[in-house]
């Protein structure tokens, strides 16, 4: 089984990193994430203390919204093109396929965000300790965002206006990650990281089953 999933993982990752015809790759969420950090100081003014106090929250909001951008190309094109049917004929379970896709999605959007976070932190006048907490939070929280994203993408695959609906459905599910992620930056909020990791794990554990059931139900 795992030997057959390996080529699928490589394909998924290539598709999500580079993008396909007419669909952006990993660059789009990344640029969006940076653009928010760039625009925020223009909007609230260059007061370094205000930026440092609110900046980490802005980074988390930007990360959450950046996670929504690629939703419509996570699952839908492959259901449409019949790839999930072909995989099913080969005895590959939807759960395993979605777990592979969550991993590929996380690498294509979570890792770039972590790499871009120092740039955002500089633009928002965060100090080294805050940046470290943000990075740790993103490391623990983005797998959860990736899991939620893939679940919602599987649920809305094949629906008209699925992309817009997907964004609306994903935001409330991602709120706990936002609260604990941004909360971990408050004084005495270190416990937030543990809760963030717990939320991520719950999302990761449920996502393949919820998404797999959605794809199978969509075949009827």
């Amino acid at each position, binding site marked *: 089984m795992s030997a057959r999933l390996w*080529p699928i993982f490589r394909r998924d990752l290539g598709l999500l990193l580079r993008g396909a015809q007419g669909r952006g790759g990993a660059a789009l969420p990344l640029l969006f994430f940076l653009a928010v950090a760039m625009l925020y100081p223009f909007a609230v003014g260059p007061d370094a203390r205000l930026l440092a106090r609110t900046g980490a929250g802005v980074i988390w909001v930007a990360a959450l919204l950046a996670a929504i951008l690629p939703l419509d190309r996570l699952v839908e094109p492959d259901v449409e093109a*019949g790839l999930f049917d072909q995989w099913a*004929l080969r005895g590959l379970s939807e759960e395993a396929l979605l777990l592979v896709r969550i991993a590929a999605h996380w690498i294509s959007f979570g890792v770039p965000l972590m790499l871009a976070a120092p740039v955002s932190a500089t633009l928002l006048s965060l100090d080294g300790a805050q940046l470290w907490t943000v990075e740790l939070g993103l490391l623990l929280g983005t797998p959860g965002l990736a899991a939620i994203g893939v679940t919602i993408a599987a649920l809305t695959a094949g629906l008209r206006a699925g992309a817009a609906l997907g964004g609306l459905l994903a935001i409330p599910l991602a709120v706990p990650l936002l609260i604990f992620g941004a909360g971990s930056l408050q004084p005495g909020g270190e416990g937030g990281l543990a809760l963030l990791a717990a939320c991520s794990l719950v999302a990761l554990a449920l996502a393949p089953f919820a998404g797999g059931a959605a794809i199978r139900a969509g*075949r*009827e």
Partner: protein
Amino acid sequence: MIAPSLAARDLACRRGDRVLFRALSFALGPGEALHLAGANGIGKSSLIRILAGLMRAWHGSVAREGRVALVDERLALDGHVPLGRALAFWRAVDGADDALGEGVVGGEDRFGLADLRDVPVRYLSTGQRKRAALARLAASEAPIWLLDEPLNGLDSAWAAQAQAAIAAHCAGGGLAVIASHQPLALLPLRTLALADFVPPPEAWDDVDDAGEAA
């Protein structure tokens, strides 16, 4: 190797309020091919998907012995990828340990794809896509072939070639179910006319949830 077989027992299919067909049974063994004939919308594609195990029958059961490969109207090849690599992807998923890779297209080339291997899939014409799908099917080495309108978009020469490939597959001990509204010159071939299994609208309710035909 276990001889492949495909058997349907008392199948019924319901879409919405309509019962498309009922009491449909057949059994296929190695070397046999079945032609599903019928007008558009009669349920050929639904039957193919039920046989593939992708859709649940409303009633009845399907017994499969051997791996199944399917060609339907969806190509399942990535549009931006050159054809050779797109086909090699399925070879890798199928766990081919030979380094056939792009040779899938070049090796035997029963479907005339050698010149197209560097062409991105989205640039292929309708007929070329169909041939690519047939090449994917053949490369899977599955003994049971399910084909939904395999001749659509093929010119007469390639339609003959496709039928020859199906005949060769059956001659090699495989079996095939072909849904097509076009006549097939292929031998040996049994024909199942779906129209024989369509209940009249007034009988739809007689097929109750247990599927027992009244």
